């Protein structure tokens, strides 16, 4: 029988985010956010253990793009490919 040992891909990576006065990321770790491109929200599994995330796509100084989200339950920030 084939083993079904699944390893999830694209697991969120915890990051340290400093917010500006508008509540948007100003810096991620040591990198400064240059532009905030887009923001959206995901609410899922409200019938079980609700998952609520606020996603933000940013451009860092130097041009790197990054998608971040804030877990609205724990208030922790993560980086994740969309």
């Amino acid at each position: 029988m084939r083993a079904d040992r699944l390893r999830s891909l694209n697991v969120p990576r915890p990051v340290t985010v400093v917010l500006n006065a508008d509540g948007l990321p100003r810096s991620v770790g040591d990198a400064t956010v240059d532009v905030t491109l887009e923001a959206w929200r995901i609410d899922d599994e409200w019938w079980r253990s609700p998952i609520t995330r606020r996603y933000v796509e940013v451009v860092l100084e130097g041009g790197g793009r990054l998608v971040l989200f804030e877990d609205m339950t724990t208030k922790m920030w993560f980086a994740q490919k969309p």
Partner: protein
Amino acid sequence: MPQRPTSSLAACVWIPLFPLRCEEARREGLVTHPSALLAPDLSRKLWQVSPLARHTGVRPGMTVSQAIGLCPALRLCEPDPVHYDGCFARLLAALNEISPVIEAGELGLAYLGTDGLEGIYGEPRRIIEVIKRTLESWNDSIVPSFRVGWGKGKFIAWVAATRAKPGDAVIVSPGETGRFLAAQPIAVLPLDPDTHRRLRQLGIRTLGALAALPEEAVTAQFGAVGRRLWRLAAGRTVEPVVGSIAPEPIVAALTFFTPVGERDLIERAIDQLIARALKDPRRIGWRVQAVRLVAEVEGGRSWLADLLLKDPAADGARIAAPLRTRLEQAPPAGAVTRLVLELTAFAPGTTELQLFARDAVAAARAGQRRALESAAREIHQRLKRTCLYHVIEVQPWSRLPERRYALIDYEP
């Protein structure tokens, strides 16, 4: 790995123009008209031409306009490779009732190993009668065009089948092999056009003329190919029929990150599991006849669908269809946490659609897979852990990116 069964005594069943015969069998009146089958590609050229159409000058490879110009009454058929392959799989399954050693050739060509069948059916003539009866019960509208040959080894059985009249058989007993082969034209050999031309230029028209030459001289002139041809012509090569062993059940399973209740999501997961199970190398050469789907349901309950396919299939959509129906008629009583798909019974068949999987392509693909498996085993032996993974879809519809795809160990 268990050894594949072989048989040196062989019966060859040959149904020329098999795809066209399949069309004639399902289209009323087609057999009485000149007809042709279009090629299963984008060329829009003729692939197979009925004898009636041939009488009017229509030939395979012609364009439709050329053919219609020669034969305005020509009836053209669009190709349906899945149907032809299904018919062929059923033919193989029927022949498998006579002998456990069955080897499929191209569409419409199959070899039966007959070693030991004398004890069940009697002399070769009796075995041929059983084959004829089986063919008649399989599909009586295709039967008039079949030919059967019997002899020692596949080549002699094949040549005998090509010499037989439609609906009849030619038996070459081992003592007559030399005389039978000597009279045959060299065209019965597996020749490329260049070798055929060269042999004819040398004045060699029959297998007897070729076998009369010294083996070394033929080898010197034509290389290893020439040696093989000489040995076939002289009856020195006996290629046995090589059967297959039905594989053990093939299992593919999927555990959801979160229980899934929506039917369309479960159906997508079933499609993925079927695709994974069909890719199992043990399934090569076999069609799926029976399938079982087990669902583990929230709350410790379970759900089971045990289905026997009317027509054995190697096509994912055909296997999925009855499962979808069952899912619709009697869905699981709750959200599904885990799905296990088992392919539990198989019928002899081909790797894929014969029309598109020519031998060379299939062999190259099998070679690549073997090389990959060998490399994976070596890595595993050296590092004592799996370092190779497949990327599989788990819940590609999920809004949460980490739930869409996952890695699974690559186990050759």
